[in-house]
């Protein structure tokens, strides 16, 4: 059945979002590009590594380039275990970055795959402290359920390893999370092209987070706009309820037609 197209709002941590594209900021050639990229994409949630936030150095402080209309979602990039993630999250809150936190716990420097177990631990602690916790994770159903139980506001499974632009390699697993987990499922990492973002949205993902694909594009601003459109298109298609996929052309002489004679 087609879902309601009007008033399609994503609510995370009590905030109502009309854009379902989240943007990362780590790889741009110049922070000055960020406002333009954000505006071209229509994105309302921008993630920033706490490790890069420097309130003392105005000219280079990445947060100062994020438009006021956006939600800053600091991330714990660089954390190798729950304890470090918790410390980094608290630093972010102390620096005035609000109470959203994207947990990234990575103890594998070769592929940058998230550590679900440490991520669950950090989520429990930070959710209890009042943070809106959005954990980056490997798409594993049981881990996602535990994150939900721990108080996460959404789950953010990877589509492919960070920075690879390889697309939705984990599609089957992400689909299961979408079906089985009550929280918004935000595909984070790996999405390289707008078509892949659209595909994730068509599948029913609540949102998509993109960084490398935009930051390393030849024209980041144009690519950000393309992602904005693709995410909106994919969402619309999901809400419209795509027709069933037919393996064969509908037969003009049905095999069971005689039953009606």
């Amino acid at each position, binding site marked *: 059945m087609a879902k309601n197209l009007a008033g399609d709002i994503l609510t995370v941590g009590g905030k109502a979002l009309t854009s379902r594209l989240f943007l990362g900021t*780590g*790889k*741009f*050639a*110049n*922070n000055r590009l960020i406002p333009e990229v954000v505006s071209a994409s229509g994105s309302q949630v921008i993630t920033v590594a*706490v*490790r*890069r*936030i*420097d309130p003392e*150095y105005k*000219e*280079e402080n990445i947060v100062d380039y994020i438009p006021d209309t956006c939600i800053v979602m600091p991330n714990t990039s*660089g954390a*190798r275990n729950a304890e*470090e993630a918790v*410390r*980094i999250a608290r*630093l972010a809150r102390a620096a005035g970055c609000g109470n959203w936190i994207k947990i990234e716990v*990575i*103890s*594998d*420097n*070769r592929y*940058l795959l998230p550590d679900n177990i440490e991520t669950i631990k950090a989520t429990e602690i930070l959710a209890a402290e009042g943070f809106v916790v959005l954990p980056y994770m490997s798409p594993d159903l049981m881990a996602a359920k535990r994150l939900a139980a721990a108080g996460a506001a959404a789950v953010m499974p990877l589509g492919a390893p960070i*920075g*690879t*632009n390889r697309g939705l390699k984990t599609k089957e697993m992400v689909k299961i999370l979408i079906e089985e987990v009550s929280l918004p499922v935000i595909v984070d990492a790996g999405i390289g092209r707008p078509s892949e973002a659209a595909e994730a949205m068509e599948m029913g993902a609540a949102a998509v987070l993109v960084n*490398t694909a935009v*930051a*390393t594009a030849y024209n980041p601003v144009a690519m950000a706009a393309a992602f904005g459109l693709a995410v909106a298109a994919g969402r619309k298609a999901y809400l419209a309820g795509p027709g069933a996929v037919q393996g064969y052309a509908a037969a003009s002489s049905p095999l069971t037609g005689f039953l009606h004679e």
Partner: protein
Amino acid sequence: MSVYDELLKYRDLDFAAVFEQVTDDDIQRVISKDRLTVFDYLTLLSPKAERQLEAMAQQAHRLTVQQFGHTILLYTPLYLANYCVNQCVYCGFHAHNAIERKKLTLDQVRAEAAAIAATGLKHILILTGESRHHSSVGYIKDCVRILKDYFTSISIEIYPLSTDEYSELAAAGVDGMTIYQETYHEANYAELHPAGPKRDYRYRLDAPERACQAAMRAVNIGALLGLSDWRQEAFLTGVHADYLQRNYLDVEISMSPPRMRPHVGGFPPRVIVSDKNLVQYVLAFRLFMPRGGITLSTRESAALRNNMLKLGITKMSAGSCTAVGGHSEEAAVGQFEISDERSVAEMAAMLYARNYQPVYKDWQLW
């Protein structure tokens, strides 16, 4: 098992014979592979691969942008003391060199820190000569306590420590360690280090692993280019880096390819490593370890550093001074002469002009 055993596997390797067998097709195949073996890495270090440097450069650039974006981390060294009990024949701080010896007082450390912090940098690398008497672990900890008021990332480049000592410094706020093996060639190593505790090849060789075990966040290794055959040094540095990354997945492993520079001792390099050689090394390493950090220091000229920006480098020093107290006072004699004298602001301007972002702060836990 230590990296020593890993290196032993290659002790009798006939590099010349391996290089002889490499074909252009081998090199092309390796360049387009997803994951390289150590022998693939060696293929890229072969003299024949010099003919395919451009293809390697394209791939290295692509991988680096994908992994690190258009960014370069800036940091600067801070020399705390130049007392040294060793006699490394290639170094200006050599125990017998008649230079003025100095060690910063804690007030001087604060003055240096303030001067550096005013440039915007948040990453600092503190250095000492090897003297447990003058630059004890306790003294370094005292300095770190002060530096934490100014910097969010503090790395050490000091004499090798025990695992417990590394843990102690990590707990005090040190998150990175750098140590150069100088040369992986054990016989050359013995000759170049005639006296002092540094003669102990294995204790130094195992230091990066001890730092990994002590949960240092970042470990940087390298060979001093000019002491032995560079292709072998580059290969063994890669083997060492790969060993550490495989065994300590959570540590950020980096490599530096420092070339010998003039210094007061006047020891000439034994092996000349050309710009082309240096470029080949950096490119091969990037293809071998796409996530590995690569540091290019101010030992290299401004022109070369500008040109190597797009070839895989992830970190550069800026506003460097190799003399104790050189950031806030009249400089004394440095460990070696630097080549790129640009200030932090000048480096930043150069990076922006080339469409790169200087990163002043890339870590904070405290």
